[in-house]
């Protein structure tokens, strides 16, 4: 055979496998409102940048009638490519091939591309669309999952790992996304659960739909398993592109710096926060007023909305923002908010992203449900994450900083590099009303007009303590600043922190309150 003939034969062979499960299965996939695995990869990556490997891998199962079954690519597409020029490794499970079920060879294709990503120090993106373990392969499928989880863990904190849930992802399969840094879900398409509605109904008699049990919205709003929530696959793929542009390719690098831009936000930053400390506002407006081009990529927008986390740029450099959100639950810290912020802080620290903390919080959320849910150990995660982080850490106290929350929100005492406070900041052990009730209990009780005395004492407390100057007098606050100066000061603080060199005692790893 001439080489020309061989080339033609190769092309034919490729064309067949690239069809995945064939026309009928593809039709079904499209009817479910889903893109095919290949379309997803090609849409996400830069044009002509995708290169596939292991196209001709085949399964070796001989039992249960599998010996004569040909599964294109064993149900998963793997390869490398670029997103806006950034190199990445990628895999996408192909639901048209036996429901995207995971057998040993399918898993080995995934672990091979994961090994590659870790060695080459590039991000790894996994697109999940699979019915789960290939039952016919029995324990070999479980082995496959385990090998993936192990690599997820080895890669954690070394390369960014992104999971995209574009179909069912049930049983053991959910643990790979859970171990990765960012999980993307799409309304009506993503489904994640450990045990599905059928099992739950059979075993426990509880009836629930797939959507209510583990749909996209549930994971974006209730469980916090998903970081990004989109209404369509295309929107989701755009979100991934934006995220990839903001994060470094590995822990050995910094995020790519882009040309600095001024904020486009028009409102005067001084007018965002209401004068009455009991009135809410949207803290994201403060972020918009500070970031380059007023852009901010929010993570976990719906879950634990009382704290805001995400990436924005300052002077072209990627910054992780952590901000209390007075608009929801008065901006308190609770189990979920602590959990959300702590993992984000760990991420930023692992990937050399400086952290800017914007603080306006009344304390930890009181309640039996919180105490019983373990707010002590969840809250401790924040203390741990901030203390452990060695990236530049800057805090701006916008308004309230009370009690344990003051300590937790990257205080000087946990190692903040710069502590700024706006002139209206109230830094105190608790709100003035609560403090006055305790400190002046006797005076208030003995007064003829208790209420008048209480008001007088509250006022006294506010004047004496509910301001930034007590903390500034002790050096806990470096500077009391005008809101207008905030951006320039942040840029400056980041500039002088560039070569920050901070070390931790040698350890294998810490033992954080998980």
């Amino acid at each position, binding site marked *: 055979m001439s080489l020309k003939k061989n080339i033609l034969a190769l092309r034919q062979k490729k064309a067949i496998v690239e069809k995945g499960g064939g026309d009928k299965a593809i039709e079904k996939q499209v009817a479910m409102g889903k893109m095919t695995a290949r379309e997803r990869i090609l849409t996400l990556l830069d044009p002509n940048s995708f290169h596939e490997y292991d196209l001709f891998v085949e399964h070796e199962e001989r039992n249960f009638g599998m010996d004569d079954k040909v599964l294109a690519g064993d149900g998963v597409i793997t390869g490398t490519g670029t997103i806006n020029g950034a190199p990445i490794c990628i895999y996408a499970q192909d639901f048209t091939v036996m429901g995207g079920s995971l057998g040993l060879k399918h898993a080995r294709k995934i672990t091979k591309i994961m090994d590659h990503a870790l060695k080459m120090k590039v991000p790894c993106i996994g697109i999940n669309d699979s019915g789960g373990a290939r039952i016919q392969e029995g324990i070999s499928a479980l082995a496959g999952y385990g090998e993936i989880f192990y690599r997820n863990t080895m890669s954690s904190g070394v390369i960014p790992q992104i999971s995209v849930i574009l179909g069912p992802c049930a049983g053991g399969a959910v643990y790979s996304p859970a171990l990765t840094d960012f999980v993307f879900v799409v309304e009506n398409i993503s489904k994640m659960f450990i045990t599905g509605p059928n099992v739950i109904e059979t*075993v426990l*008699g509880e009836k629930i739909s797939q959507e209510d049990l583990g749909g996209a919205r549930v994971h974006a709003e209730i469980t916090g398993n998903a970081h990004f929530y989109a209404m369509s696959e295309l929107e989701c793929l755009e979100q991934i592109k934006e995220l990839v542009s903001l994060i470094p390719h590995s822990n050995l690098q910094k995020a790519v710096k882009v040309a600095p831009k001024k904020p486009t936000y028009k409102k005067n930053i001084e007018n965002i926060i209401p004068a009455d400390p009991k*009135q809410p506002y*949207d803290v994201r*407006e403060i972020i918009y007023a500070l970031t380059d081009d007023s852009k901010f990529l929010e993570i976990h927008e719906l879950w634990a909305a009382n704290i805001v986390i995400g990436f924005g740029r300052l002077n072209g450099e990627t910054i992780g923002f952590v901000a209390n959100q*007075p*608009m929801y639950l*008065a901006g308190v810290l609770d189990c979920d908010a602590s959990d959300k912020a702590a993992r984000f802080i760990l991420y930023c620290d692992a990937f050399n992203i400086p952290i800017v903390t914007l603080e306006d919080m009344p304390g930890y959320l009181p309640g039996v449900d919180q105490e019983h849910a373990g707010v002590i150990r969840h809250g401790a995660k924040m203390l741990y994450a901030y203390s452990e982080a060695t990236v530049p850490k800057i805090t701006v106290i916008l308004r309230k900083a009370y009690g344990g929350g003051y300590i937790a929100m990257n205080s000087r005492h946990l190692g903040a590099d710069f502590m700024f406070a706006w002139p209206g900041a109230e830094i105190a052990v608790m709100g003035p009303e609560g403090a006055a*009730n305790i400190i002046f209990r006797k005076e208030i009780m003995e007064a003829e007009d208790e209420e008048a005395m209480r008001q007088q004492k509250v006022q006294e407390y506010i004047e004496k303590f509910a301001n930034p100057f007590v903390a500034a007098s002790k050096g806990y606050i470096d500077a009391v600043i005008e809101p207008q100066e905030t951006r320039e000061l942040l840029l400056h603080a980041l500039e002088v922190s560039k070569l920050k060199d901070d070390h931790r005692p040698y350890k294998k790893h810490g033992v954080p309150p998980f």
Partner: protein
Amino acid sequence: MPENKIDTTELVDFAVTARKYKTLLTKKYKNRKVWIEPNPLEIQSFIPGTIIQVSIEENQIVKEGEPLLILEAMKMRNRIEMPFTARIKKINVNVGDRIPKDTVMIELEAIEE
């Protein structure tokens, strides 16, 4: 940069220590389980499952530690025992019932010993 307008009609008074803040509530917060002091005279299911056996009758006095019923859950037959000696006031479950978690299965009545 989305315009973020706060829907002021949804704002509630939210007490954190002695001060009340105007704020919105999250869905999860609204749906949180309100704590109820447990009643020692009610025997509740600690796990969802199926009643396999009921070993007692109403009005019977049962001694502490004696078996009351068997609740099968996760392929395990859990023997539910009498927490203290008392009279069985009411049995709310039958053999074959599939019950959710925290169902009051048996109501007790204290007796003078």
